[in-house]
């Protein structure tokens, strides 16, 4: 069985390779697929990427959710953490996955613009995702890369059960920024 894991990427050559042959999950949507799809979502700010994976069947799903939960009627399930997780679980079950085997990874929930209101939205996205996955569905969160002040790109390689993450922040002169501790500290690496 292939276990789900998260890998942070900094090498430009690997990033270039990971960008190839991807299926993009747009903001406010999710995709369910079986091996060997390579799902990707780009430029996560305070939105949160939810990855679900069944190691036995190699069925996986990636969502790019904007908000914790709907206030009124649900226009699009992928837009909200609560409804996205529900739709992903049901969809994965429909292609043979078992909820007992599902594992999760969370990425995103950054606070790029330094406003109190922003912190509240990104923090709520993270909190609600944790609560829904673990308390409502009993799905363990294997790893996460959340919070901080930087944008993130995500590629989910279903065949390997690997979630690749890299940061989009730059210095003013275009240098890449290296991040530690979930994006809270960073330094230029040239």
């Amino acid at each position: 069985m292939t276990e789900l894991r998260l890998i942070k990427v900094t090498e430009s050559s690997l990033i270039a390779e990971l960008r190839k042959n991807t299926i993009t999950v747009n903001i406010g949507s999710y995709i369910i697929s079986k091996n060997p799809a390579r799902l990707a979502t780009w430029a996560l700010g305070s939105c949160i990427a939810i990855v679900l994976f069944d190691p036995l069947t190699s069925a996986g799903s990636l969502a790019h959710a904007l908000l914790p939960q709907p206030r009124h009627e649900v226009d699009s399930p992928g837009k909200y953490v609560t409804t996205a997780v529900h739709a992903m679980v049901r969809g994965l079950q429909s292609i043979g996955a078992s909820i007992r085997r599902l594992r999760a990874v969370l990425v995103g929930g950054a606070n790029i613009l330094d406003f109190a209101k922003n912190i509240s939205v990104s923090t709520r996205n993270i909190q609600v995702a944790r609560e829904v996955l673990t308390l409502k569905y009993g799905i363990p969160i294997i790893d996460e890369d959340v919070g901080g002040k930087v944008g993130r790109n995500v590629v989910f390689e279903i065949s390997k059960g690997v979630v690749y993450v890299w940061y989009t922040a730059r210095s003013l002169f275009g240098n890449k920024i290296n991040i530690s501790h979930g994006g809270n500290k960073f330094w230029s690496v040239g």
Partner: protein
Amino acid sequence: MNNYFQDTKELEAIGHEALQSASKALSKILGYDVRIKLASAFMLSPINLMEVLGKESAFDVATAYSKLKGMLSGIILLAIPLNDAAETLKNMILRTLGVSMLNEEIATDLFKEIANIFFGAIATSLYNKYKIIVSYSVPKVVIDNFMAILDNIVTLYIMEFDELVIYDAEIVGENTPRIKILIIPEEGRKFSRSELVAGDFR
């Protein structure tokens, strides 16, 4: 794409006046003639923000932003493609100070000051034309992928405001870097043409 936009004559008038004013202020500070011209002004709902801007703006940007307060509250944000920003700032500093080396901290401070000039010019134009009084916080700078910044903005405001205003401008003669200025009204205020004319933002 044009389906999203509205009649924005008043917004263009504000933009023209603000950019002229910013050009003068920048020219005075830098000691040489800087001309910034408005390419377009339009309005966009947050749900369409990433779809429209994302297609043309999937690149890294140097962004300065401030919190707006007063009769119009929200965020004002100035974004320049990163390559253009670094090059333009280098040129400005080298021409103004005559130094050969550019410190990133100095460049960031200069960028904040430029944003300050732009935001001040827009605030002044809003008052001159419509007697709308706004103040803004000291600009902060963030450098990231424009889509990630838009993602942040959409998440913040998708449930609460109808439209934001976008000015697309360029600095003439500096390899014409493109500038985007976003004005994002808070708490569901509609930055519409009719309200601009009425000046009713309270």
